[in-house]
């Protein structure tokens, strides 16, 4: 071809803008995500730390350091995944496929528990079921004269219940969304074949929804094994250790190398199951949804079972949403959690220091430390929301513009890596990397910057998703049709791109803000008295026996989170296809 010869022999070295941008993005992701994770691995491989591996896995203490916590963690993970899929799946089936009354309300209620931080639910459990085994105040039920056995008060059972009550809404959301795509034609085709209800459920509905069930199970499993708050509040007092609490304990007492080993193992456990779940789903060729016209929603008639099932669903929803919140509020007002609804006082909220109550602790609004912590937590939330949204948008943009090639593949993988890493292990990795000075940079431990970059990295997967959705919405036809009218780049940016994108970005940012507000597991290791974060304060108060203060702080977190979530929903005018009648 003549073009070949016509091309100048020596091309000027051109700076490839795309490539540069990709490298910059990769560098950012490398520092934020890959470096801490690699660092924590190498830290345990250094000559003075390498024996931590054998200590943890086979040494004299291995049983207590690793194997028992690992066993507890796995029991929790499996049982929580089963419970969540059962409850979430049941509610999803009820809301999406049957004619149960108040479907919309049940559907909304079932998504709420995930917005209530798990330490809130755990604190509420304590206020109700605490017995006198570990001293301090007893809970409301003992106050009523009941005797609460240890197994219901502490340890595995309450941890399990609290985690299921928290995570089932995750399974509900995933399964409900999948069931909503099951065309009612599929069910009617089975009816035409003469299958009875049970056979339709087992032979058609369940298999079609199986990927969602597996996804729900692996997500809730990963959530349960990484959860720190529930086992710490309900299990630690009776020395029930999970990997998350063991990791926390080891780092707190300065055995960092052993802690890092546990952190790496925890990441492996959590990632393994997420990966397995993903493999089960993507390994089957049969599951791309087939779309087609038609498909009117025809619902199972429940008949006589309608009311009992409604009551059951209502009970589940109330027990996991309204009840914990009411208990938290009541116990932040009651001097004694054994008498939740009497002698209410605002002391724990606004009272000034009084040596006769709670060792002279002032109410949370009169405690300058807590007031400044509130401000700090909110600024942290806002700052993380902004930085992560910007980085997420850039990553999404780079991937959308040129998603091919090995570089884009790496960017994609690394940006979603934090999803596989439990928050507490991520926190440990950040200490490993930034706990000591690096070259000219000072140690970041105990600074706002550390919390900010850790939060940004941890929540990046969410903001990349937001960024993708926004770019998908904005780019393509809409932008091109504006281009066809002759509008210039700036004009398109201001009148098409920004108005379309801003709502989605703001909503995504608010979700990140909420996640930071109520996060405990990531920040619990990064916490220092100079950088107090509300959730850790609540946890500290609770473990020191000042439950009223802990509950009051939790209520503050709840109020801020719920307000931000509602605002985000408003912005997204969130579509919930499964609620359509």
């Amino acid at each position, binding site marked *: 071809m003549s073009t070949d010869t016509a091309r100048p022999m020596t091309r000027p070295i051109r700076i490839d803008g795309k490539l540069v941008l990709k490298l910059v993005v990769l560098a950012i992701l490398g520092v934020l995500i890959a470096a801490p994770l690699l660092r924590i691995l190498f830290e345990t491989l250094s000559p003075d730390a390498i024996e931590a591996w054998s200590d943890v896995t086979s040494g004299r203490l291995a049983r207590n350091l690793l194997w028992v916590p690992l066993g507890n963690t796995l029991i929790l993970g499996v049982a929580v995944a089963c419970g969540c899929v059962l409850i979430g799946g049941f509610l999803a089936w009820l809301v999406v496929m049957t004619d149960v009354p108040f479907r919309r309300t049940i559907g909304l209620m079932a998504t709420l528990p995930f917005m209530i931080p798990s330490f809130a639910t755990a604190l509420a459990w304590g206020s109700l079921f605490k017995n006198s085994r570990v001293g301090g105040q007893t809970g409301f039920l003992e106050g009523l004269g009941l005797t609460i056995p240890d197994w219901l008060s502490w340890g595995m059972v309450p941890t399990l219940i609290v985690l299921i009550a928290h995570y089932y809404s995750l399974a509900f959301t995933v399964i409900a969304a999948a069931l909503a795509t099951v065309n009612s*034609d*599929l069910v*009617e085709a089975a009816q*035409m*074949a*003469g299958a009875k209800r049970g056979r339709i459920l087992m032979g058609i509905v369940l298999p079609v929804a199986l990927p969602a069930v597996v996804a729900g199970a692996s997500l809730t499993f990963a959530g349960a094994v990484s959860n720190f708050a529930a086992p710490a509040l309900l299990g630690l007092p009776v020395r029930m250790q999970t990997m998350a609490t063991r990791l926390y304990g080891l780092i707190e007492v300065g055995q960092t190398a052993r802690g890092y080993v546990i952190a790496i193992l925890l990441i492996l456990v959590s990632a393994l199951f997420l990966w397995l779940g993903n493999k089960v789903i993507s390994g089957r*060729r*049969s*599951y791309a949804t087939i779309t087609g*016209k038609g498909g009117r929603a025809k619902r199972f008639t429940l008949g006589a079972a309608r009311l009992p099932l409604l009551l059951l669903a209502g009970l589940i929803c109330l027990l996991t949403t309204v009840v914990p919140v009411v208990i938290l509020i009541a116990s932040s007002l009651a001097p004694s959690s054994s008498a939740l609804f009497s002698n209410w006082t605002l002391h724990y909220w606004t009272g000034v220091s009084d040596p006769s109550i709670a060792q002279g602790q002032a109410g949370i609004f009169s405690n300058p430390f807590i007031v400044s912590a509130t401000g700090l937590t909110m600024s942290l939330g806002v700052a993380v929301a902004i930085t992560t949204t910007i980085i997420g948008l850039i990553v999404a943009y780079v991937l959308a513009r040129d998603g091919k090639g090995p570089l884009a593949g790496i960017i994609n993988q690394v940006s979603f890596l934090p999803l596989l890493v439990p928050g507490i292990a991520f926190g440990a990795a950040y200490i490993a990397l930034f706990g000591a000075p690096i070259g000219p940079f000072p140690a970041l431990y105990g600074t706002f910057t550390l919390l900010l970059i850790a939060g940004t990295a941890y929540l990046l997967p969410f903001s990349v998703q937001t960024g993708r959705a926004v770019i998908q919405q904005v780019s393509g036809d809409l932008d091109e049709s504006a281009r066809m009218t002759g509008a210039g780049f700036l004009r398109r940016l201001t009148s098409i791109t920004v108005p379309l994108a801003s709502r989605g970005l703001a909503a995504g940012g608010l979700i990140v803000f909420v996640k930071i507000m109520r996060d405990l597991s990531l920040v619990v290791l990064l916490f220092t008295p100079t950088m107090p974060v509300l959730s850790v304060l609540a946890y500290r108060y609770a473990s020191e026996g000042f439950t009223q203060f802990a509950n009051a702080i939790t209520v503050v977190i709840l109020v801020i989170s719920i307000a931000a979530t509602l605002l985000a929903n408003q912005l997204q005018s969130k579509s919930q296809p499964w609620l359509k009648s």
Partner: protein
Amino acid sequence: MIRIDNLVKSFGPSNAVDGISFDVPQGAFLVLVGPSGCGKSTMLRMLAGLEQPTSGTVTFGEKVVSDGAKGWTIDPAQRDTGLVFQSYALWPHMTVAGNVDWPLKVAGMGKPERQARVTEVLKMLGIEALAARYPNEISGGQQQRVAIARMIAPRPSILLFDEPLSNLDAKLRVEMRTELLRVHRATGATSVYVTHDQVEAMTMATHVAVLNKGRVEQFGTPEELVQNPATAFVATFVGTPPANLVPISILPAARRGGLPPDGLAMYRPEDIGVSEVPDATTVAMDFAEASPVAGRTMLTGISGALRITAVVDAKPRLTVGDQVHFVLPETPAALFAPSGERLS
């Protein structure tokens, strides 16, 4: 035989199907045709037993299978019918063979028998090579064949089709029309076929029911509908191209003689000519479009809301917006009252 007697289905205050009655003999190919929302899909679902009639009865052979007044209806599976859904409704988690096999399994057929039947119907539809594939791995036309294979496998005596070709492209649609007729003949079953496309109705049916607003406008053979439309709606709905209805008030003076003062006159496209000059037998229109049809030209003019289509031998040289004069024959082929019913 299928007998439908005064069938009504209401959703809330409105009647989707509003008192429909007709009979079709064993082995017929009945097409229910009409614009969207005319109640044809609801009719089909009542035949399938997926909806219960509000009143009226459905009888298959000697057996009443749905009785609205008594409020009972025989289960879909007990009616000896098969249904092809518009979306095909293939179960995505089963292979092609699995989809065809499952209804037989539910029916309790033995394994060797099932295997033989599955192979037989897959072969009949020419998709035996796809047996191990999943629905999302095959094309739309192939999915269509699987849906038909799944329907006929249990040998139902009534085949129901809900707009089965509407998701296919034009060429495939024509092929599948032939294929469906072949399946219909090979099974000897009675078929009921729902479509909004009158071409499908005219080419496939032995009997056609034209539905509009939940009622039957006309029931008959395709020839009867075209030759002898019972209402103005049918006249303009069937035929390629459909007949023209011209308000008598705008007819040229020489053509108005002996006709009632208002109402609609029907002219067939092949009876209308075109001319470049006006006279006492022409109607002036704006030229809109022309297309070649089997060696002749189909030519359409518009004037306000009125469209007239003629099929003529030679294409006049016209561009859009030119005046064209349609020459009307001596007498209209039919007359309709302003309300739409047939006058003569």
